[in-house]
């Protein structure tokens, strides 16, 4: 594999409007935070998508291991009584 000459990657999170959650938009290459912000601005906000940007070094992200997907996520899926849809609504309860 050839060496990556495109600098380190940074993850970009954008807020669409004041008060909204920051949502992952993608990633950019950059030498430091300042350049990452500018590159994120030029890559992801050209059509008015955001009002505020966070950038985080990709290396700072701790990710779950795909091999441990069963252990991590399956136990939540087979217990349907955890879901609000498991319970039938009493007929008279209109305000819930």
């Amino acid at each position: 594999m050839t060496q990556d000459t495109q600098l380190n990657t940074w993850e970009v999170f954008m807020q669409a409007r004041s008060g909204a959650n920051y949502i992952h938009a993608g990633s950019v290459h950059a030498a430091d935070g300042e350049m990452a912000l500018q590159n994120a601005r030029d890559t992801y906000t050209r059509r008015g998508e955001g009002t505020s940007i966070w950038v985080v070094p990709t290396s700072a992200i701790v990710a779950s291991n795909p091999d441990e997907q069963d252990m991590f996520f399956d136990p939540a899926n087979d217990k349907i009584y955890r879901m609000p849809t498991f319970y039938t609504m009493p007929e008279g309860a209109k305000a819930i």
Partner: protein
Amino acid sequence: MSQQQAIAQYCTRLGDNSLIQSYRLSEWCSKAPLLEEDLALTNFALDMTGRAELLLELAGKLQTPTRTADEMAYRRGERQYLNDLIVELPNTDFAFSIIRQFLVSAFEVQLYTALSQSTHTELAAIAAKALKEVKYHYAHTADWVLRLGDGTPESNRRAQAALEKLWPYTHELFEMAAGEDTLVANGIATNAATHYAPWIEQVETVLAEATLNLPKTTHRQRGGHTGIHTEHLGHILTELQYLQRAYPNAIW
């Protein structure tokens, strides 16, 4: 020259500067050192095309007979183009394009700040819109000047070489064209010479931080304001105007 003609000429100069800058930056499309920088430079080019359209439209409206922005861009020969020579010089390497954009954008921040107070309301509105764009062009390229100047010996050498090559062409930015005195007197245009002091102060500060040296040459190159260009503008127009020359009035 009537005042209306003078405004048309002034807006043509500003519009031509935007259009030719845009052309040079768009040449980086698919060739910039980083994908993100490719997007940034072509994004700047789009800003400049938008500005060129507004300015050339205004300039065309003030002429007799009136001309559209497209006619202004596609139906004038190089002797009718009034841009500063610095914007038409070919991109030799990334450092050259960045240093040029830094020098020109630093000037344009001063220019459009002043023009946003113009007594000509349409020109003032265009300037106010342009100001937001050129401030970012300046911030982005100033950042790169620091990285290139204070980077590796190779990047420093290239940045310094670009600076030496470009310096004689910077003086033209601060000159007015014939017939524009009344525009300055009426508060429509701004005397470009007044922007030199803040410009040189800002440029000196950034260059010092970037460990680059201010060129010592006193040589000055000019001609754009009277339509006397380098050999490079003709080549730009050949490509830029090809379609309208080969298929007049083609639309899509």
